[in-house]
């Protein structure tokens, strides 16, 4: 007998509406804490479900966002988590990815303005990315050669990285240190070390972002520097080259530059 359509939806709805309602009310209670109208329950024990469900959500978020959790007053954090879990329907099947939905929720609700914490989005994003880069799926490393020309060979970078822009220096300054007064343009490279799997952060200037972005696009350094020299009106290609080479040698030491394309 054919039970399902091609899209996986059941042809026959076998669950009665009343049963569905009971299940939905219990689930809603677990998300909101609002007293449910349920049939034949042990009222004294019902709270255990709300407690257990909410604790999982709360613990997962505390673990993912330890800086935000420590910074926000306890009652503000608790209300934030409570509202999120009540208002937002978590979509991921993987609880460890659920904090990303929390970040999206805060951003969408513009809670940084509501809470008067202008760097909230940046802080959550920064904390999420540490987790994200640590756990992101492995990306195959390109074949490289150790010896090559910095200027004319294609430089190969560790592919397991993210390059991001922030409005507040949440990666260098604690939230308690007048962070809200430091609005600007900040660039951050986050990458995963191949051997250890540890996540590393490097604060970047706009010039170095320009260089890295172009290296990612397969452009050789000599062309990148010529363009940078013009665009940024530096007018000193030798000085620029010297800075770039020092920067790239440092990235090689840190195992972000892997070598040259073979």
């Amino acid at each position, binding site marked *: 007998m054919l*039970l*399902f359509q091609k899209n*996986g*939806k*059941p042809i*026959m709805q*076998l*669950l*009665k509406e*009343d*049963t*569905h309602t*009971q*299940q*939905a009310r*219990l*689930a*809603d209670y*677990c*998300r909101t804490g609002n007293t449910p109208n*349920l*049939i*034949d*329950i*042990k*009222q*004294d*024990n*019902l709270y*255990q*479900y709300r407690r*257990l*469900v909410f604790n*999982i*959500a709360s613990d*997962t978020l505390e673990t993912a966002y330890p800086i935000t959790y420590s910074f926000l007053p306890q009652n503000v954090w608790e209300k934030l988590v409570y509202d999120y879990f009540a208002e937002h*329907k*978590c*979509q*991921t*099947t*993987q*609880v*460890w990815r*659920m904090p990303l939905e929390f970040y999206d929720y805060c951003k969408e609700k513009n809670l940084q303005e509501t809470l008067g914490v202008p760097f909230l989005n940046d802080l959550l994003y920064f904390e999420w990315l540490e987790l994200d880069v*640590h*756990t*992101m*799926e*492995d*990306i195959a490393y390109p074949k490289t050669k150790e010896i090559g020309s910095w200027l004319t060979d294609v430089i190969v970078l560790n592919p*397991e990285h993210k390059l991001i822009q922030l409005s507040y220096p949440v990666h260098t300054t604690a939230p308690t240190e007048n962070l809200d007064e430091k609005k600007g343009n900040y660039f951050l490279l986050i990458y*995963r070390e191949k051997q*250890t*799997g*540890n996540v590393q952060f490097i604060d970047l200037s706009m010039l170095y972002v320009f260089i890295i972005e172009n290296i990612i696009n397969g452009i050789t350094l000599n062309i990148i520097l010529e363009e940078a020299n013009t665009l940024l009106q530096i007018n000193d290609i030798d000085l620029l080259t010297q800075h770039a080479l020092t920067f790239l040698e440092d990235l090689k030491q840190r195992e972000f530059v892997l070598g040259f394309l073979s």
Partner: protein
Amino acid sequence: MNHSIGIGFRKDFAEELLNTNDLKPAFIELAPENWIGMGGYWKKELDKAAEKFPITCHGLSLSIGSPDEVDVNFVKQVKQFLKHYNVKIYSEHLSYSKCDNAHLYDLLPIPFREDAVKHIVQRIKQVQDILEMPLVLENVSYYTSVAAQMKEEEFISAIVNESGCNMLLDVNNVYVNAFNHNYNAKEFIKKLPLHKVAYVHIAGHEQVSDTLIIDTHGQAVIDPVFELFDYASDLIKPVPVLLERDFNIPELSELQNEINRLDAIVSKKWQTNYAIA
């Protein structure tokens, strides 16, 4: 030699498990949701674990009792994971953790009702068709039933018998439920579809009041649960047995002692050890 008793693979003791011989499980169990799509350090650790031990999987997010549609893409992801790690047993909970398109990440009790049986049987068949292997479903612990119209054992038996799935007998859950709902654990076990038991779980729990035990997996297994396991093992065929310990992880030697005790129980009555792979 222990051929039948496994341990839940926890990040808390992964390194020690992989690099020492303090704990010698016959296999390890993990939740695919915690590993699917993961790279980096933990992927390497998982791959090392897969080289050292056979793996069984015990899922958390299938939500087989959900009123919602089956998440087909998720099931396909699980299937790929099972294939990659050569997993022969994929078990899940006879409960729901998603409702009206919202995941809850914990196990809620399904109303023990005939229409729920039919609905879940249909969903099990759909999942099994995708996986091309039988599901193994666990009797869950619960702190209140909701809108029940039939007995728990009737509910479980109907689902297992009508769907063709196998059963994970969670001995601790039987103990916890028997205490919380005031029934006889042994009588309850006898009424289950024991011929379909393909996997056993055993764990510790926490009694929080005179009338309530919470299934925490955070304490050592207590003697009455070992005794209930001893009783149940007389009634079922040899199957893999899993010691669950999710929190308050003790010295691994303590977990090994629990494994040894379980092994001693089954080795005297199960003539053929169950080889997981």
